[in-house]
């Protein structure tokens, strides 16, 4: 911080230099104003007040706004003074006043700045002092450690020397004793009168004495009297002393965890901070994507990219959505580069999902929305937003949000007879994605699309998905691609009815000749059987003979015997789960044709089939007529 400190001081200095002449100017002006005040106050009945400057006080410069009672040019209210003279002075005064005001504002700002600067200087000084103290403390600490080590070393040496000398002493003592004993023995023998005994023992004694005489007495000291002092290794202390004078390389920065809502689909906003008060010239931010399945060898490791920034934050752009990135920072100054910070994992926001229009269905009380994730990797959850459309068709604000939707579909409760706009966002740690394209849902009547993957191969569908055709061409069986879910015998298709067990109504349009079966069936109805021929489907069947029309209402292969005199071309189908009824109507005549009574165990789907080449069209999203649910 020293260089910056110096800079600040110089700034202060220069400002102070500037201040002084200005101050004097101020004083001049104030003197002028005072005199003018004195001049003008006397003949002035109107009471125009001038600014007052608290020039010689310690108060911060304050001025009251001038009252806007400008004198009229005619000077009717004024005394007999010369108008022009007064006008001159007025202009001058006004301009001077404005200048003074400006200067005062500057001064205030400057004073504020100065305060800040003083504080910063104090801070810097404090930090430097601390730093120094620490450094020297370290050095002292190290030195004392060395001293202790040296001292203990010496002590130990002394001890070992003393021990060896002592042992030597012992040995000498023993030798002395032994020789003394020998001599006494020899003397005893010599004094012995018994000649025979003397002769017996004299030879070994003489031998021993001879041996003893041959022995060399080692009289050298086992150890030296000098102490060897090892050279104290003070190299590291030296480096420490040196480093006091050198600006250290910065320590590793600390990278912050991801802030919520700071990421977008293609960018991340990363922040970090310095752990200590290092001086740093610039930072380098490294990042690389984290791939799910990384092979063991690092040759295929993803490319790491680098950004050089001077601030402690950075927005990294050009990233992939819904991807995890590893980021770390290194700080650099004149001395060197810091070690890398800890690696932080950031995640970009996912791409918006895509609502699957053809898989959404609705009924007067609810809607079922399905969508595609829009991201290759999984996201945490989805948020569904819906808003009710006003009567004019304008959008209102978001009225409801459903969060933490775990899968790519959602069943939403709605009010009858309204129109809604529904959109979806994908959510992960990085935040929510942009809103998907909205879908319009109308809660008038029941609305559904046909399930294309259940269609018999001979059935083709119109562009809008509501008319099915059974063509005239004969398809060879082998050419037909049967999937698991398609009807194989009955040329039929199911509808994707919303799984809400309430009342549903739809209409089917046919022509005079179409041979059809329409009704409902369980989702798992046998695909290799005809509609109405089993216990999992109920349908109305029309058979055309050359002479007349025949009608059957089939379930489990059985039908009541009915005659209908006017062929219905628009058939209304009404399903009521609560009452367990399925009714058919001639919608054009409002004529009831037949009602099945059955407690539907599971959810049913509308079913449609053509027994002979022809076409039929489904109409839904129609509010049920009054008579349908009597």
């Amino acid at each position, binding site marked *: 911080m020293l260089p910056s400190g110096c800079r600040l001081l110089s700034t202060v200095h220069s400002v102070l230099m500037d201040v002084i002449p200005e101050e004097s100017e101020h004083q001049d002006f104030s003197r002028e104003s005072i005199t003018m005040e004195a001049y003008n106050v006397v003949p002035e009945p109107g009471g125009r007040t001038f600014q007052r400057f608290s020039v010689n006080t310690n108060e911060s410069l304050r001025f009251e706004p001038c009252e806007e009672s400008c004198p009229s040019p005619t000077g009717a209210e004024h005394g007999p003074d010369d108008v022009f003279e007064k006008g001159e002075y007025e202009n001058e005064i006004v301009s001077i006043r404005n200048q003074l005001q400006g200067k005062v504002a500057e001064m205030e700002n400057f004073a504020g700045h100065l305060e800040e600067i003083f504080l910063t200087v104090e801070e810097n000084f404090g930090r430097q002092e601390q730093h120094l103290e620490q450094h020297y403390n370290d050095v002292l600490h190290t030195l004392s450690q060395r001293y202790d080590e040296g001292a203990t070393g010496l002590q130990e040496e002394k001890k070992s020397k003393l021990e060896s000398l002592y042992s030597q002493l012992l040995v000498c003592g023993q030798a002395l004793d032994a020789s003394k004993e020998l001599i006494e023995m020899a003397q005893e023998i010599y004094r012995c009168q018994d000649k025979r005994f003397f002769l017996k023992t004299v030879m070994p004694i003489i031998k021993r004495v001879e041996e003893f005489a041959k022995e060399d007495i080692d009289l050298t000291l086992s150890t030296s009297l000098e102490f060897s002092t090892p050279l104290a290794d003070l190299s590291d202390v030296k480096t420490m002393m040196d480093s006091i004078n050198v600006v250290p390389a910065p320590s590793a920065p600390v990278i912050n965890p991801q802030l919520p809502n700071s990421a977008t689909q293609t960018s991340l906003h990363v922040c970090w901070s310095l752990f200590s008060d290092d001086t740093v010239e610039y930072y380098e931010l490294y990042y690389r994507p984290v791939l799910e399945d990384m092979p063991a060898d690092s040759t295929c490791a993803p490319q790491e990219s680098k950004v050089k920034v001077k601030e402690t934050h950075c927005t990294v752009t050009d990233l992939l959505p819904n991807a995890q990135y590893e980021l770390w920072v290194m700080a650099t100054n004149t001395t060197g580069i810091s070690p890398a910070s800890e690696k932080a994992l950031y995640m970009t926001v996912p791409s918006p999902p895509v609502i699957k229009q053809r898989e959404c269905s609705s009924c007067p009380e609810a809607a079922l929305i399905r969508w595609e994730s829009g991201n290759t990797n999984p996201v945490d959850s989805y948020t569904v937003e819906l808003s009710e459309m006003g009567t004019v068709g304008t959008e209102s604000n978001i009225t409801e949000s459903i969060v933490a939707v775990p899968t790519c579909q959602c069943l939403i409760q709605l009010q009858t007879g309204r129109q809604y706009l529904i959109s979806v966002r994908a959510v992960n740690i990085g935040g929510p994605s942009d809103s998907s394209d909205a879908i319009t849902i109308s809660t008038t009547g029941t609305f559904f699309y046909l399930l294309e993957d259940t269609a018999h191969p001979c059935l083709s569908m119109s562009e809008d998905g509501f008319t099915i055709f059974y063509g005239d061409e004969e398809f060879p069986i082998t050419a037909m691609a049967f999937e698991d879910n398609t009807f194989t015998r009955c040329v039929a298709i199911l509808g994707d009815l919303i799984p809400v067990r309430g009342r549903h109504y739809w209409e089917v349009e046919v022509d005079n000749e179409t041979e059809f079966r329409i009704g409902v069936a369980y989702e798992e109805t046998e695909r290799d059987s005809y509609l109405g021929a089993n216990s999992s489907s109920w349908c109305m069947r029309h058979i055309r003979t050359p002479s*007349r029309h025949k009608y059957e209402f089939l379930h489990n292969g059985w039908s*009541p*015997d*009915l*005659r*209908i*005199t*006017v062929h219905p071309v628009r058939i209304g189908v009404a399903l009521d789960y609560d009452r367990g009824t399925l009714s058919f109507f*001639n919608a054009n*005549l*409002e*004529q*009831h*044709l*037949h009602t099945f009574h059955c407690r539907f165990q599971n959810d049913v789907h509308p079913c449609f089939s053509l027994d002979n080449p022809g076409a039929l069209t489904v109409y839904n999203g129609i509010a049920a007529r*009054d*008579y349908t649910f*009597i």
Partner: protein
Amino acid sequence: MFLPSSTASHYRPGLRFCVLLKIKKSSRSVRLELRRGRLCDVTTLNYRRSLLLLPRKLANPALCKPSDLLRSAMALTQVSSNKCAGGFQKVYEHDSSELKCKMKFAIYLPPKAETDKCPVFYWLSGLTCTEQNFITKAGSQLAAAEHGIIIVAPDTSPRGCNIEGEDESWDFGTGAGFYVDATQDPWKTNYRMYSYVTEELPKLINANFPTDPDRMSISGHSMGGHGALICALKNPGRYKAVSAFAPICNPMQCPWGQKAFSGYLGADRSTWEAYDATVLAGSYSGPQLDILIDQGRDDQFLSASQLLPDNLIAVCSEKKIPVVFRLQPGYDHSYFFIYSFMNDHIKHHAKYLNA
């Protein structure tokens, strides 16, 4: 109610508000007493009896004109009244101007009739029936109560006219009026069931009961089915709905019809056409009909070619008259069959009557 303590002694619990109304009616006075909010008739002896017979509309003087009181007091006599399905099954007797004799009819008043005007469903019974069969055997009252419909069931022929030969057969004469206006002697004076059902009876009902005169429908069984069909076909737009149980669809071609028509209408078959549903359907023009017909498959008269529904169906198919004809397996000609499908028929009628 908070009362100041000083006046508490003046009031007793169970306060009764008495309102005295005096209405002078041909030297008899009527005193009406309001007891705890309920209107209660208190009259002198003769008047009480006739007033009690009248529906609420008449008991409340605000609702009827003086001429009504006079006429109706002499026209209808209640024969019986039973509470049924929350409403009342009643039987009345009156002097018929068309039939020149006393005639009875049954009327079911649903709970809704106490407060509102209701539509009327006319039921025409079959051979040998009176007004009793339907009300005791058909099980119509619950559905009528649910949909708020008045059901009127007249007798099947004039009674006690002392015409020679009227009681000889069960399918001609008494109990076998065939809903025609006879032109031949000795039947032409009394046997005018068509006019009775289409003119006199509705007027009588509308004058005496809380009905909506614009909303009526007609149905029947066997001979009554024939009657219902021809009334609807001959009066386009008059009946809001029509249905039938095992009707005689083509009387000109079946033994029953031929016997009856030759007796009532004479040998000229062209006069029969005006009372044959199949013929009338062929020349019908008017508001769209929606006819519901139920027929028991095991009906002996079907196999005896008395009913001939196929003829009617063929004509209706050609003329695009909407008919739903249901052949019910196992069912015969009896009231058990009628009972089984009466709900469906009343629902069919309710759709149009309550629309």
